[in-house]
């Protein structure tokens, strides 16, 4: 049965902004889906609010709507495009929920639009825990003891059945948010209350504990002939109790016997059939009791997921692409295996390597967050690595994290308090793997560690072997390292720079010793079939064996370094830049080779580049690929400017090793990155900059601060995403910062800048070819200075900023780009105060805003930069300054809901996980859409609660008048109310939390307030205010912490009251 012919156009739903639990894996799946549809000649329509994604690039779909993922918008898109069907299974939970909403509201029926991939009944059976549990009972498959509660008394009844510890999961929340494990009555009541509240259906599942059981996942696909196959099995290193997204995982499942695995496979097939997912991919999770091999079904996702992205990368089987083809009616045996090309997609991939995934956390951004891992996902990204042993893959993955680890040993050496070992082993945190290593090193037994962690002993023993190897390595100087030991160590995943530490040598000496012994990495192909058939696609990983399958071509070629794991400050936007660069390189007739280690991304799709090396982004691994590729054809060089700070850090060692950097040369990078050198350049070019200084002690810092005068912005040198950045107002604040926030050393001084409070910040991206400069985009921040640019809403064109200032800033940017010798992209940040534009910093690379600017101007700026690196001038490319095609606002989303207890307030340290875009004819329309897309539906009526700091009181009347004019009621705290009184605006006075009852929080709880505008008053009012903000967050009441944003929001409210237009970016 071939594909169905009734579908001429299909609407794909994206997943919106990157957030914890829903990251760029859905950019990968959506991009694959669009490709699969277009190959069939189907008109593709995309709805996704995330401009940082590859799928929203204008060349990926026929009509791309970068609009909020809401029912109202969906209805308008359907009206405009009249698609035949919607594919809701490649955009995560967001897309699935929106599709269900469309189904339940009758929109689909009314418009005659079909759902393909999964039917509403199947989605319901898969997602509704109650229905799912009943279905499992019918199939004779075991599930956890427990049940559903809709109120506290039902919950207490269930507790009698489950006992402690009890697992609580709210229904229908993202990434399991709001769930938890209760060990006592207090915890139980707290978590149940929170869960009931967060669940849109006011329902929580309460179950017996299966903590400590082994956890597995199977990725399954099914076609319309009921052919079902398992694409990949995944085993969690961390046992049950930790969300699989937060667990270290391995593929394939390693510790199961064949009968155990087949029992799970049989169950998975039965589940997907019974749930009735007609076509496409699903993910089914299992737990296995290690003492009995008893298997129970945990849950299923009737759509492609984060795990299916991992499984696709782990096996070379493109699940989302296949799932989309199946949704069109193809059968598995009709589809080609994309890697072998001679066999079909009907088979089960087999691996001849081991894959390890490790999640990436950013707890350092949220010091107040609970860092214990549990059933609610907290990680923001992940890395994957491939090796020919578990040991090798594990150590490669640890390096890929870019947290300073060279392998399991080292980074935390001496920093771990072994006295607290037990606690860190029993209570899982993001560093547990290192505690395990050091515990083994300190002589604790595998048995003891298993008892404390419940981690399968085989894994622990493999780690113990690594410990033993480290000990053996330590007994040799580098030049006497025996061949056999060195080979064993490399095969166990030790890096040269790690061995160098053990053997008191340098990385170069270890590399030289290796070379002398003939030990070089070999590259093997990921081929879906363990070598049974020839692999036509060069998807490669490095290991330590004799035979290499890299087979470099004889073409001209360029290497693009990727951006590594997603983290706050470096996310999907850099992957988007890498992919745009790769496409530009390929289109220029040059072979594009990509190196990256992030399994969620489009860049690591083996189809994206000509050749993909799935390797850690460290000097040793990158240099080895460079050497291998240089052995054939003409390697033009390496691009280090598209993957954010990750590749930029490699620029210097690669340059020193004689590797050619394409685009901006190292010298320019240093000029821009080094504060001293950059300061000189600004002086030379007469560009104003805030006064600044450096310090290595509090005393020095105090002197500098007094010279600059408070407030000052302090930060460690060389940081990403504003890590540990703060504004301090006095000596006491400075002392506290120097004592608590940073470890200062002579190599790592602290930077102090005069803080331009109340300034207007501007963000500018430029491309330069050495002769000409094109301004890609100039953005005005909506929030004032002091909030990290990554956390600021921003608008292009830079509305509200005087034209002459914009021209001045553009002039500065052109001068700087030419003077520094930029070849490619550079991002600059300016602050405007009292009519003067100060240059704050320069990033000699593609910036976070490049994809957004690309969408706003219709130019692939990263591609332009890549072509410059290949020698094509701006003139030759016909590129001049970018022209915004409408008003576009970049909005941001924050993970505060995942970190109860964290004060949701913004500052110079970046905290957002993702971005959205609002496009409109007016600022109000664009801003309203960006807020909507970010999940902040502004109220159209009701009462606004105001409490602002003294600095903001000058502009308070303007805001209050606007709100009154819009018909809002006002209430305020004492001081704020007094200010308004003075200008004749009457407001209701409200107690602060510590002033009496009913207070502000009571009002929020009682539903008397629909909107909170609270600009922080500083330390004194900290607890009071954070209680208000936290409550607002919990109740999903919009809370703006910035007066500029609040003023902008008034415009947005006006727009929201009118009719909203949607437009495809292709039509702009």
């Amino acid at each position, binding site marked *: 049965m071939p594909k169905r012919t009734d579908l001429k156009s299909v609407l794909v739903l994206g997943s919106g902004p990157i957030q914890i639990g829903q990251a760029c894996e859905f950019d990968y799946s959506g991009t694959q889906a669009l490709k699969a549809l277009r190959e069939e000649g189907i008109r593709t329509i995309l709805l996704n609010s995330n401009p940082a994604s590859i799928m929203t690039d204008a060349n990926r779909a026929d009509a791309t709507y970068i609009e909020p993922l809401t029912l109202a918008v969906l209805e308008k898109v359907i009206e405009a495009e009249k698609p035949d069907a919607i594919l809701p299974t490649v955009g995560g939970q967001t897309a699935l929920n929106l599709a269900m909403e469309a189904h339940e509201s009758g929109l689909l029926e009314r418009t005659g639009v079909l759902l393909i991939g999964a039917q509403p009944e199947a989605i319901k059976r898969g997602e509704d825990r109650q229905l799912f549990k009943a279905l499992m009972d019918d199939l004779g498959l075991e599930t956890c003891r427990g049940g559903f509660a809709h109120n506290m008394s039902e919950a207490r009844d269930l507790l009698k059945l489950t006992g402690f510890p009890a697992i609580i999961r709210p229904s229908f929340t993202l990434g399991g948010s709001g769930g938890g494990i209760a060990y006592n009555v207090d915890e139980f009541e707290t978590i149940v209350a929170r869960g009931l509240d967060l669940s849109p259906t006011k329902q929580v599942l309460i179950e017996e504990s299966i903590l400590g059981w082994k956890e597995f996942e199977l990725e399954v696909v099914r076609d319309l*002939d*009921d*052919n079902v*196959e*398992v694409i990949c099995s995944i085993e969690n290193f961390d046992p049950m109790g930790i969300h699989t997204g937060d667990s270290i995982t391995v593929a*394939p499942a*390693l*510790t*199961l*016997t*064949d*009968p155990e*695995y*087949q029992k799970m*496979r*049989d169950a998975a097939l039965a589940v997907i059939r019974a749930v009735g997912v007609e076509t496409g991919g699903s993910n089914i999770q299992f737990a296995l009791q*290690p*003492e*009995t*091999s008893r298997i129970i079904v945990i849950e299923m996702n009737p759509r492609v997921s984060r795990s299916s992205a991992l499984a696709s990368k782990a096996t070379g089987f493109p699940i989302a692409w296949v799932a989309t083809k199946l949704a069109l009616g193809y059968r*598995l*045996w009709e589809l080609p295996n994309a890697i072998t090309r*001679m*066999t*079909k997609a*009907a*088979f*089960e*991939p*087999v*691996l*001849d*390597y*081991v894959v390890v995934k490790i999640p990436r956390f950013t707890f350092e951004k949220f010091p107040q967050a609970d860092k214990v891992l549990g059933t609610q996902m907290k990680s923001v990204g992940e890395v994957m690595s491939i090796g*020919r*042993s*578990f040991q090798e893959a594990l150590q490669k993955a640890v390096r890929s994290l870019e947290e300073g680890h060279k392998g399991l040993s080292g980074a935390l050496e001496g920093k771990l308090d072994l006295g607290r070992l037990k606690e860190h082993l029993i209570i899982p945190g993001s560093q547990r793997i290192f505690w395990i290593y050091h515990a083994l090193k300190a002589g604790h037994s595998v048995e003891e560690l298993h008892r404390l962690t419940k981690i*399968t*002993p*085989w894994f622990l*023993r493999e780690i113990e072997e690594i410990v033993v190897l480290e000990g053996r390595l330590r007994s040799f100087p580098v030049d006497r390292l025996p061949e056999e030991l060195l080979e064993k160590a490399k095969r166990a995943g030790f890096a040269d720079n790690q061995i160098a530490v053990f053997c008191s040598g340098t990385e170069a000496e270890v590399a030289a010793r290796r070379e002398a012994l003939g030990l070089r990495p*070999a590259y*093997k192909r990921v081929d879906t*079939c*363990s*070598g*049974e*058939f*020839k692999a036509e696609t060069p998807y490669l990983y490095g290991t330590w*064996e*004799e*035979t290499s399958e890299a087979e470099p071509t004889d073409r001209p070629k360029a290497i693009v370094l990727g951006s590594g794991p997603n983290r706050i400050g470096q996310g999907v936007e850099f992957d988007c830049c890498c992919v745009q660069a790769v496409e530009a390189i390929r289109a220029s007739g040059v072979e594009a080779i990509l190196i990256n280690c992030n399994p969620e991304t489009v860049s690591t799709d083996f189809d994206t580049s000509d050749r993909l090396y799935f390797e850690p982004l460290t000097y040793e691994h990158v240099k080895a690929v460079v050497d291998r590729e240089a052995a054939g054809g003409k390697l033009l060089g390496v691009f280090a400017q598209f993957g954010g700070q990750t590749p930029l850090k490699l620029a210097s060692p690669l340059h020193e090793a004689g590797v050619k950097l394409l685009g901006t040369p190292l010298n320019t990078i240093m000029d821009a990155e080094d504060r001293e050198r950059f300061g000189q350049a600004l002086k030379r070019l007469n560009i104003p900059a805030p006064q600044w200084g450096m310090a290595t002690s509090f005393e020095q810092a105090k002197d500098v601060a007094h010279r600059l005068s408070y407030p000052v912005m302090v930060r460690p040198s060389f940081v990403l995403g504003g890590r540990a950045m703060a504004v301090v107002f006095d000596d006491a604040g400075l002392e506290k910062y120097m004592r608590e926030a940073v470890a200062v050393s002579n190599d790592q001084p602290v930077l102090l800048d005069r803080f331009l409070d109340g300034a207007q910040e501007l963000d500018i991206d430029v491309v330069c070819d050495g002769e000409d400069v094109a301004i890609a985009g100039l953005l005005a921040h909506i929030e004032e200075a002091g909030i990290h640019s990554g956390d600021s809403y921003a608008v292009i064109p830079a509305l509200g900023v005087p034209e002459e200032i914009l021209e001045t800033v553009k002039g500065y940017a052109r001068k700087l780009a030419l003077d520094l010798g930029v070849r490619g992209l550079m991002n600059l940040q300016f602050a405007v105060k009292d009519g003067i534009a100060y240059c704050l910093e320069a990033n000699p690379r593609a910036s976070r805003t490049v994809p957004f600017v690309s969408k706003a101007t219709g130019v692939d700026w990263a591609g332009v930069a890549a072509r410059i690196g290949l020698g094509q001038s701006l003139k030759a490319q016909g590129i001049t300054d970018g022209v915004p095609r409408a008003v576009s606002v970049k909005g941001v989303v924050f993970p505060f809901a995942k970190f109860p207890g964290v004060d949701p307030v913004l500052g110079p340290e970046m905290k957002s996980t993702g971005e959205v875009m609002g496009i409109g004819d007016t600022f109000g329309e664009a801003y309203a859409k960006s807020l909507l897309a970010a999940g902040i539906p502004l109220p159209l009526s009701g009462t606004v609660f105001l409490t602002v700091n003294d600095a903001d009181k000058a502009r308070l009347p303007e805001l209050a008048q606007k709100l009154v004019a819009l018909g809002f009621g006002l209430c305020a705290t004492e001081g704020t109310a007094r200010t308004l009184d003075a200008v004749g605006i009457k407001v209701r006075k409200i107690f602060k939390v510590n002033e009496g009852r009913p207070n502000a929080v009571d009002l929020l709880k009682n539903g008397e307030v629909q909107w909170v505008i609270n600009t922080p008053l500083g330390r004194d009012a900290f607890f009071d205010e954070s209680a208000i903000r936290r409550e607002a967050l919990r109740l999903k009441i919009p809370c703006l912490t910035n007066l500029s944003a609040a003023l902008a929001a008034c415009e947005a409210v006006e727009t929201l009251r009118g009719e909203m237009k949607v437009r495809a970016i292709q039509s702009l």
Partner: protein
Amino acid sequence: MRAHLILKDGTIFRGRAPLGFGGGGEAVFTTAMAGYQEILTDPSFAGQMVCMTFPEQGIYGIHADLNEGTRPWATGLLCRRLTFAPDHHRCEGDLPSWLKRHHIPVMTDLDTRALTQHLRDQGSQPSLIWTEVDGSLDAGVAKAKALPDMTGQALCGEVSCRDRYELNPGGALKVAVLDGGIKLSILNQLVGVGLNLEVFPWDTPASELTDKRFHGLFLSNGPGDPAALPGMQKEVEACIGKLPIFGICLGHQLLGQAFGGKTFKLKFGHRGANQPVHDLMTGRIEITAQNHGFAVDENGLPGDLVVTHKHLSDGTVEGLRHTKLPIFSLQHHPEASPGPHDAHPAFHRFVALLKEFHHA
């Protein structure tokens, strides 16, 4: 101990022989990721050294209930890494000690992927694990070059039972089983569908197998070259038309030959637990376990023997059915072990066939 794997074509791979001794056999690879114990004890692997393409072996140790034969029949294990301290609640010992006890050589630290690709491109071939105490490499190469090919080797006699025995005497339908090296899982599956079995040595004459007390005949899997078993083939031929017959793997090949078909050696065989088989009767795909180096040639089969299953990757014959007689056979292994259970219904199909025949 350092060791080399030397192939008959002179290719050498380096590695280690942790048990301190070498050995020989036809080098073949299987892509099954788990199930090393089932594979090593499968009598069909007699005379073969198995390269496991998955690099981590021995993780869950040796289990009492995972044997497919009375002992390990493979003559060697070729792998990348071997676990010496296994981990499983039912584990009764570790894989290396078990191999040592049965004097089966093992080679580790091999570039198994390079070996697999070589066998894929050059074909399965005789090979030696040559340790550093076995002599010079040259001597090893000379010895390897002189090794006999698998083609023409009759190995059923080595692995078949010596004496007739009965299983599940309470079963309503009684089936004669011709044991060319039968896997225990096949016996378990046949018993599992309620059959009473009488298992006969490989060289049992047709007259015994077609005795009136039998409702049907089952032809088992087994090692070696099916074309080297003219005696067995003749006896099978003599059974045709007398009672319903079901054959698996070697049994399937013997049936093909008995009907006048030919078998041929596949370049590197089908060995794994992920092999897609197209069921031409339903149009659906079964993911199957396979272990065969020879196949039935579709050309030369008589018109009343129809091909019911084909391998999706290379189109070779995976199943046959006679249009007039109650006879069918499968090249793949519906009992799996190790592997997926998609083809399990074949055993029910046999029971249905027996019932249909004896009601008629």
